[in-house]
């Protein structure tokens, strides 16, 4: 059995390894599939659906869907790009996102994707939910207006004895992420920072620290999201 799988992405021939997801294989071949909830090294949740592709006429989240021999993937096609943009727009209207006053501006992946998709005004009406800024233990704040329920915090931040520090509450549009306050307070400084850094938006914030890097010199101020992966078509 061969250890190399051949697939095509938008007609481009790519090689992949068994067990890779479509998104990983694409990245390894210099193709960027926009994604939001995924975080390198964490089990993908498949929650945001921004990375949706089409395989054999069926829609799949490329962050969770495994490659198989001969697979033909459609990704950067107009209708899929529009769906991705729509999902980003949904996330904007679901919360209350005020980029100019957000600590994460310039480092925010939601904002970066909105720029990438050239979003001006969401096609959907704003829902203007009433959300609060909540203390999450002694070290962290959760700005619930900005949470996009990506589940990175729930998946990735655990105590030494593997207890969940973050987790989802409720369901439907009422769903929210919160913490076990005692465990969150006891997080070592490094992990508290990690929680903030892993949050793709400005929801999880380390108290008393902010704007260490000025707006204008942040990650996506320098280069658009995905540009580290994308290679021009040869």
């Amino acid at each position, binding site marked *: 059995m061969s250890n190399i799988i051949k697939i095509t992405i938008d007609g481009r021939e790519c090689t992949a390894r068994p067990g890779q997801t479509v998104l990983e294989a694409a990245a390894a071949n210099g193709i960027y599939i926009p994604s939001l909830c995924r975080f390198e090294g964490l089990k*993908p*949740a*498949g*929650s*945001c*659906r*921004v990375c*949706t592709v089409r395989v054999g006429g069926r*829609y799949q*989240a490329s962050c*969770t*869907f*495994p490659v198989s021999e001969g697979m033909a993937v459609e990704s950067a096609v107009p209708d899929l790009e529009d*769906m991705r943009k*729509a*999902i980003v727009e*949904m*996330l904007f*209207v*679901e919360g209350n996102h005020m980029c100019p006053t957000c600590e994460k501006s310039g480092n925010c992946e939601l904002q970066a994707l909105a720029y990438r998709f050239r979003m001006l005004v969401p*096609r*959907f*009406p704003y*829902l203007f939910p009433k959300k609060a800024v909540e203390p999450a233990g002694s070290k962290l704040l959760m700005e619930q207006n900005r949470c*996009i*329920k990506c*589940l990175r915090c729930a998946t990735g931040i655990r*105590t030494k004895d593997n*207890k*969940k*520090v*973050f*987790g*989802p*509450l*409720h*369901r*439907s*549009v*009422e*769903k929210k992420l*919160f*913490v*076990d*306050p*005692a*465990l969150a307070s006891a997080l070592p400084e490094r992990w508290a920072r990690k929680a903030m850094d892993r949050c793709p938006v400005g929801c999880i914030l380390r108290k008393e620290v902010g704007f260490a890097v000025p707006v204008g010199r942040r990650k996506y101020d320098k280069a658009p999201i995905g540009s580290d992966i994308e290679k021009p078509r040869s």
Partner: protein
Amino acid sequence: MPKGIIETVVARHRKDRTRLLDIVRDVREELGRITPEDTALIAASLGVSTIEVEGVVTFYHFFGNEAAGTYAVYLNTNIVAAMKGSTAIKAVFEKAAGVPFGNVTPDGRIGLHETSCIGMNDQEPSAIINGTIFTRLTPAKAKALVTAMEAGKDIRKLAVPLGDGANASKVVRSMVHNNIRRKGPVLFAPFRSGSALKKAASLSPEDVIAEVKRANLLGRGGAGFPTGLKWEFCRREKGQPHYVVCNADEGEPGTFKDRVILTEMPHLLFEGMALAGYAIGASEGVLYLRGEYAYLKPHLEKVLAGMRRKKWLGTGIAGKRGFTFDIAVMLGAGAYICGEESALIESAQGNRGEPRDRPPFPVQNGYFGKPTTVNNVETLCAAARILAKGADWFKTLGTPRSAGTKVLSVSGDCKKPGVYEVPFGLSVASLLAMAGGGDARAVQVGGPSGACIPRAQFERAIAFEDLATGGSVIVFGPERDLFEVVRNFMDFFVEESCGWCTPCRVGNVLLKRELEKIMAGKGTVRDLEEIEAWGKMIKATSRCGLGQTSPNPILTTLQNFREMYMAKVDAGRAFISEFDLEEAIRPAVAVTGQKPAGHAAEADHE
């Protein structure tokens, strides 16, 4: 002391985190509530974080309310309940108890809560009070119930008169009626205990699978996956042990046929589960029963005990060495999404009922990560009948592509609501004639996630090749406002979305708003185009079957009853402002007494 009670309950469940739903249910029953403090105590006893337990508690409808009331009334508000008068019943409950729905009386005695379909559509209006079902409620009965609850009476004693069949038995003692209108040869024919198991035991597991495959048995939950193939995939998996899970979480609004099967034919079902276990190489089975049907649990346990005594369960089943199988009944707690097989498995493991990513499928990675076959109640019953009577006999029923019969739950505007076992291929019109719903304007086939079809399509057949359905059939008479139907269904999907993925969590809310905009006469043709485009997008990008079908109430009515939408939108205009200036400044005008300069109406037209 809550602490002592909670620790006792947790110990009773052997401090097993995977039994969290049972633990929460027991604690709630003993304390009459679950406060954040209780949650923290449960978490401490189990050695997990509070957020983990809170996450589970707040996920399930029947756990969610911190204070449910000593008597927790859950009134069904689905569309058929509304058609049969639940709104009036609601008003009576509110007046008599003195609090609006969503609240508990100040003394904590009576809690009034709304709930979605509880599987009693053929006997609405209905409610669940502390687990006891009350059907065919009238204003007088509702008032009497409140008086009895205020007097502290035993609620179970008020559930009279009792229903028919096993509903009237000592162990069930329920008001629920079976309403079996048509008995077919597969599900509701007499069945001699052991006949399927004896036959199975005389064959090899592979031959059992071959027989089920030969019968062309397709999954009765609605998706129609070939059962024999599923079993074959599962059997081939190397991981051990294997499990059989029966999906008895029928939650599609309008379906109730599994309830009747569980009441009258549980022995047929359990034989089906046992032979499935034999076929796939499993010795353990789980029946996941929807929380609304908790009243049937003692009945099912009793049937299981009887089967163990007769050696139809346990070791050496049907005298065959190595044929070992037993079944545990687990309860859900009010979450439609748990009817999705991977969400059901998560829930059965004591987690939030959130679907998993597939692949891997349950046959590879199911219950506790082991190879698992998840089958519908009706499917397993049909499998037992196939073994007892043979694949050839089974294939004489139905159509070439859809063998056998289908049990339908018929409700709504018809004279004879109830359960009908019919051969596949029956037309909607023939079904309506049987049920006394001939003048229907529309029929919802397959529940909200299915399709709403007009008279012009009543000749279509109920079969996998035409109208595939899990069994819910709701009839809407000539006078029904289908917009209200669609809105009720969208409310349901908004509420029941697990919230995991963006398109389902947010998209359904947006679709519902758009629908309400149209219903309010503020829509344009452009809104109809948008609603269609958004609906397609939600279907395409959602993670599981819920979001992949939730736009159907809107999309199928838009397709089949477009004139209804066109009559609501102003075809001549591309834009109608949703913003009503006069309404917006009304409070300011009232406070200041000043009228704005100029005419508000003019400012509205840009």
